[in-house]
Every structure is written in C-alpha cells, then in structure tokens.
C-alpha cells in the first residue's frame, strides 16, 4: 500500500515551503485540516510558525488535537513536527501563559533563559550547528555537525528524554531534533536549510514512505 502523506493545515504553517521541498524531492502530499483525512494518513507533517497558545487553540477548536494524537498513538502513524510543530508535540509551553500541548514528546517548552545568553540574541535566528547521534534516522549520511536554519524564542531542554536527540547550543544546549519510535521532530526548518534540510527530509521520507 502506498503511504499517504498529509501536511496538517491549521492556518499557521508555512505550508507552501514544506510542499515545495516535498515536490522537489519527488513526493506528493495532500494538505488537510480534516480530522478523518488525518486519521487516514500514515505519514503526517505538522509545520508551524507563530504562537503556541494560538496554535493549540486552533487545533482544539477543530478537533485536530485529538485526531493527531489518535493517529500517532493508536494507529501508529508517523509524524514530523517542524519548529512550532515540534513544540506542539510537547506536553506544554509557557508562551503567552502556560498551555497544554499534544503530549507526544515528554518535555516542556520554555523561553531561552535570559541569564545564560551572555549577549546572544533572542529570537535565535539563523543557521546554527546541530550535533546528532550516529545512528539517527533523520541525520543519516549528514556530517555529525551540520548547519540548519532556526527561528524561535522558545526551546525544549534535552535532559531525560527517551529516544534520540540532536543538540544545538544558544547560550544553553537545547533540543534541535528528536526521534522516538514514530515521532520525529525538528526545532529548525529543514525546508529552509538548503540542501542539508532537503537531505534530512529525504531521510525522513525514505524511512516512513519508501515508495514515492
């Protein structure tokens, strides 16, 4: 059976950029905000730009929050969360007041700590070096230290997480990418990280959807 890739549209993602990258890599995906379609897909991509609280409100109002959790937990669908999409997979965020997340990554999202920054700026914007583990699926055939494009003010700390983590440093070491069973996530934007990002997306697609 051909795997069905769905990019989840909750009106806050840079959907177009994600689709451009998938098309470049020769994959087609549907864009949907329909719960049934989400439940029918075995590969989900959750992009996102904007505020955590606003995004969760939209997901809850449309029932997409439950559809995503059901698809990933009960049906074993694979999911890739990108940037805010990764943060939404966590348990909670403190952005605009504490807000519950989808709970697929056992961690909390908080703003970069001001006292650790030593003159570094927030938002953390630009290419920064990511260090990955050698047996990572996402980073297969990429150098162990590789540049990816970030744009965010909130982050997850990697301590105590199950699964495989890739790290980045901006005043403190934070979670740059994550993979745990069928949950994949990147704090950076692979669709905005030139060929490094295209390669990472290709690795994800080959893992979850070997046929185009």
């Amino acid at each position, binding site marked *: 059976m051909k795997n069905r890739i769905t990019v989840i549209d909750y009106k806050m993602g840079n959907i*177009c950029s994600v689709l451009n990258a998938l098309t470049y890599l020769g994959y087609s995906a549907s864009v949907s905000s329909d719960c049934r379609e989400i439940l029918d897909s075995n590969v989900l991509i959750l992009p996102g*730009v904007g505020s955590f609280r606003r995004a969760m409100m939209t997901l809850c109002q449309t029932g997409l929050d439950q559809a995503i959790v059901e698809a990933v937990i009960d049906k074993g669908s694979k999911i890739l969360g990108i940037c805010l999409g990764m943060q939404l997979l966590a348990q909670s965020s403190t952005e605009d007041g504490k807000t519950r997340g989808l709970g697929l990554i056992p961690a909390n999202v908080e703003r970069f700590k001001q006292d650790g920054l030593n003159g570094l700026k927030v*938002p953390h914007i630009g*290419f920064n070096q990511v260090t990955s583990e050698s047996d990572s699926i996402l980073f297969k055939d990429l150098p162990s230290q590789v540049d990816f494009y970030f744009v965010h*003010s909130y982050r997850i700390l990697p301590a105590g997480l199950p699964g495989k983590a890739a790290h980045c440093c901006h005043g403190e070491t934070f979670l740059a990418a994550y993979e745990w069973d069928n949950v994949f996530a990147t704090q950076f934007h692979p669709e*905005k990280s030139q060929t490094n990002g295209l390669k990472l997306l290709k690795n994800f697609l080959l893992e979850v959807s070997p046929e185009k």
Partner: protein
Amino acid sequence: MLKKRIIFTLLYGDGQFMLSRNFRLQRVGNLDWLERHYNFSHISFFVDELVVLDVTREKRDFDDFCEMLRHLSRGCFMPIAVGGGIRSLDQARELLRSGADKILVNTPVFDHPEFVRRLVSEFGQQCVVASLDLKKNSAGTHQIWVDSGSRRLEDSASKWIQWILEQSVGELYLNSIDQDGTGQGYDFSILDQLPSNFPIPVILAGGAGNAHHLATGIADCRVDAVATAHLFNFIGDGLEKARKELITSGIELPLWIPPINDQKVNLI
C-alpha cells in the same frame, strides 16, 4: 555557534525586477528573465536568506506579487522575508501562504504601530522584520525616511530605534539611502544609531558591491546579517564566488553542499 548570514534582496515592481540607486529605480526584467539569464533557482543555493520587496511606487498589484512569490519560492530552500505595501493581516497571511516566512514592514512601523503589534501577536515576534531607510542630513545626523524614501521623520534615527525596541519586532533591517545601489560599500555609521547590546538581530543593507564589502559587514560585531540588492554585481556566479571567497578566507558561514549546475542535489 550561530552563523552570520548573507541575504540577497530582490526588488520587484510592476511585473519587473529592479535595480535601485539612491532609491531611483531601473527595471531589469521579469521572473522569466531572472530565471533565464541568471538561473536564479541555482544561485539561490549560495545565499542564506532572501528578501523580496514590492517597490512599486504607484498602484501595487498584490495578486501579481503573490503569484511571483509562489513561482520564485518553488525552487528556494532558504528563508524568505517579504515586504512592501503590507497593510493588513490578510495580506500578511496570504504572503505567508505564498512562500514567505517573514513579513517586513517599513512605513507602518511609524505610522501604524498598532498594526505592527497585531502582526507580532498573530504570527510571532520572529516573523516580523522592521525595515528602516536612513539618510544623513547636512548636519551629519541620521534620519529615517519612509514612504519609499520620500518623507523624512522628525527626530533622530537613534531616538526612533530606541522606540522600535518596545514594539517587539524580531529583526531590524537597516538600509542606507546614501549608499543604496552605489556598490561602494556599507555605511557603518548607521550602526552607531543602535544602542549598545542591541537585543535583536540586525541586518545591514545598502552599498555592498563585492565580496570584500560583505566581509567587512560580517566582521562588525553589531551585524548579524549582511544584505545586498545589487543584481548585476552579484548575479551570474557572483554570489557563488563571493561566498566561496568568504569561506576560504575563514569567515564562518553556514555550510552545505550546493547542487552542481542544474542537477538536483545528490540527495539519495
């Protein structure tokens, strides 16, 4: 370590890409022309970020601008900031759905700060870039000009920049009208208008004509990114060469393997 960025700025208006010199515009060609003569989707693999500005002076064609952006962004895998005439959340949303990642605002920063605050609360601080056009007056003081450089604001640029800090924008794009399009190098004195320990990223624009100019911009500790809109000096293999030159000279730019000519990247 966070790396500094090289940004290429494209000026677009009335269906054409433009060259600007001290804010006087000259048409150079449409999207087909850009693709045909300069193989834009290939050279885009040699910049870290793209800024696309609608510089139309009279009546803007928003739909045409979005359409151009959708085409342009199809082969571009780096962040794209878009600006020029954006006055509503709906316009911003449509641009973000057409390939933009950030919204750049200039005149509304001063005329409609409440609109800029709404952009920030809707799309996040990281999504909003404040763009300022600066010019030195006869007394040597920098002032900000809005409405495509046609209207001067009272008060000094440094006073305004202090005020902008309270508007929670994500980045500052500083352009020198005096140096714009001259290819004679950046005006570093515009950076003196910033308070020390400026907390958000600063993009320096206006005047870069060669790799050395980009290098001196990057070397300034107040600068997070350097931009150039000089289509003729850098297009062709100009950006590719400039980038290689900077990396060879030891500047830490983001690294990736670019595709060879028109080949898709050796990704498989």
